[in-house]
């Protein structure tokens, strides 16, 4: 039992390492980058410049934002309803869409019904289809300079692990493209530079593989012992007859042997399914029809 309790402590210790903290998770759709004053930056389809809002799909599935709402007013969450049925409102996994804040919604789905104000802080929020659940919000501070955008350095990464908001002035303006781009796979580069001989990979991986399998070993060693003890107890209980005489030492009868071999046979052939063996009697109703009559199906032999 002492061993069992030591295993229990081991598991408790293991689970104490698990991260059950209240880490703030990033929203599925993030207002990823905002440019308030557009003087020499991105031009819309009409050849005009205006402030813009970029929304990033932070999930691994396509998200349709048709029917959602964009607003710059907390008291009016349904200020700009994003039209439904536009194929372009479907954002592919980890892709973006750009909305022009030019107060010209008649110019198309991506031209919204408000502008960004360069003289005060701008609150922007995205609401779901009911307009009741806020999906993401952002407040761009007052005093913006022309052609400078605010957003998150890593696309969709709104919060740090400790919950700090990562909104910042971005080094470069990247409308409709990733805020952070990779020239190389960073993970691979790290291994290429720091683990030229593969020793680190080997040691780490072997430790984890052994760790995982040692855990399995401990679990099944324990469960095996528990199972054996239970079997032993069950056996003891069965072997004590009403008179208190043990029967296990006596010769095994032919019937018992047959039952054992039958059970082994079933076990080896995996005949341990629980089938529904209910027998029922129900009359089968068949309406008579000359088409199913046997008489018409038989060939008559030619008469001589």
């Amino acid at each position: 039992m002492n061993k069992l309790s030591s295993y229990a402590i081991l598991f408790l210790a293991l689970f104490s390492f698990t991260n059950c903290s209240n880490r703030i998770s990033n929203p599925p759709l993030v207002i990823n980058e905002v440019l308030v004053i557009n003087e020499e930056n991105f031009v819309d389809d009409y050849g005009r410049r205006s402030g813009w809002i970029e929304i990033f799909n932070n999930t691994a599935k396509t998200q349709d934002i048709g029917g959602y709402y964009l607003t710059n007013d907390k008291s009016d969450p349904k200020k700009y309803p994003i039209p439904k049925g536009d194929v372009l409102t479907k954002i592919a996994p980890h892709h973006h869409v750009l909305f022009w804040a030019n107060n010209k919604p008649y110019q198309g789905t991506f031209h919204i019904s408000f502008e960004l104000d360069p003289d005060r802080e701008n609150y922007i929020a995205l609401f779901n289809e009911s307009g009741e659940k806020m999906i993401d919000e952002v407040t761009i501070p007052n005093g913006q300079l022309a052609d400078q955008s605010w957003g998150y350095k890593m696309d969709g990464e709104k919060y740090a692990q400790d919950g700090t908001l990562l909104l910042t002035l971005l080094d470069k303006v990247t409308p409709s493209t990733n805020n952070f781009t990779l020239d190389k796979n960073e993970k691979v580069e790290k291994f290429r530079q720091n683990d030229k001989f593969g020793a680190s990979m080997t040691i780490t991986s072997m430790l984890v593989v052994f760790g995982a399998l040692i855990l399995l070993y401990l679990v099944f060693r324990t469960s095996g012992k528990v199972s054996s003890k239970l079997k032993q107890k069950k056996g003891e209980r069965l072997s004590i007859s009403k008179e208190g005489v043990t029967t296990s030492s006596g010769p095994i009868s032919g019937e018992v042997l047959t039952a054992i071999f039958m059970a082994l046979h079933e076990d080896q052939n995996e005949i341990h399914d629980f089938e529904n063996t209910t027998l029922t009697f129900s009359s089968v109703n068949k309406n008579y029809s000359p088409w199913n009559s046997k008489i018409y199906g038989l060939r008559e032999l030619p008469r001589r």
Partner: protein
Amino acid sequence: MNDFFFFLLDNLKVFWNYTGFANVEMGHIIMILFGITFIFFAIRYEFEPLLLIPIGFGILIGNVPFDLSANLEIGIYEEGSVLNILYQGVQKGWYPPLIFLGIGAMTDFSALISNPKLILVGAACQFGIFGAYIISLQLGFAPTEAASIGIIGGADGPTAIFLTSKLAPHLLGAVAISAYSYMALIPVLQPPCMRLLTTKKERLIRMKPARMVSQSEKIIFPIAGLLLTAFLVPSGLPLLGMLFFGNLLKESGVTRRLAETARGPMIDVVTILLGLMVGVSTQATTFLTAASVRIFGLGALSFIIATCAGVLFVKFFNLFLKKDNKINPLIGNAGVSAVPGSARMSQIVGLEYDSSNHLLMHAMGPNVAGVIASAVSAGLMLGFLY
């Protein structure tokens, strides 16, 4: 009449340009010979015929030359072609988890549950993967390529395909062919290592018979196995999840039909498609490279390292075990996950030295542990490098 004659001649010329004869290169001939060799070995010597015949025939299909510029959409690398659609299962890595579902539904883990210390032998054999990883790095392969080559040492075709499709898709054909070829060559590669690293006394060790495993233990195994391994290495989830799910179907006792489908028709269908598509993907133009030759060499090496690591680990482990509890080091080779080929090898070599010492059931323990361990290793490398 003259015009008609020229038209006919032109037509015949166009037809000739479409034929394989007009487009054949030396590479195609070499690959076709490879394919025929695979089929020959599979039929004549019964080397993994279930795999080598689809792969061998796939090589023939993949190396029938045709005019690429005709844009007939028939080649495996032409988007939208039938072969390309079937190849998605390999490329996107969804055939291997389905194979694992079948493996789970046909594997009896009771040898492992009854003697859980044999699990550690499966872990030791993973040195083959990382040994080959180290050597591949030294030969100038990138870390992602080295990981894909190393996984051949896991002796697990689906795992090798799954990892390579993610990390180094350009090596997929070479890695898959190498993995399956060496699985077929287990009877050639493993016994010399096993004999070399063991003494006669060690080969005669008789192991205690395994205890009976209860139904409850068999049911707990896939659930606990999944939770413990996948929590540690979530990147191995597609393989581990399907493996343990398949095993629960088998052991629950109430889903017999599902288990039978998973280990019968389903795994057969996926094996056919996987084997054939791996073969087809070996088009001479993409396959016959110096890198492929090196991958073949490294693949053999990783198998040998894995076998040696397993045998040596058992010898080391025996130092800490009581006299009546020792493990026969001839089951060390079975830690590679080629089920049941490597366990069968332990049995055959064991019988050579003691005709009444049956090691098969003992070897099945490390053998199935190898399946779990190689899936964990693949998940780890995927997590580190993808």
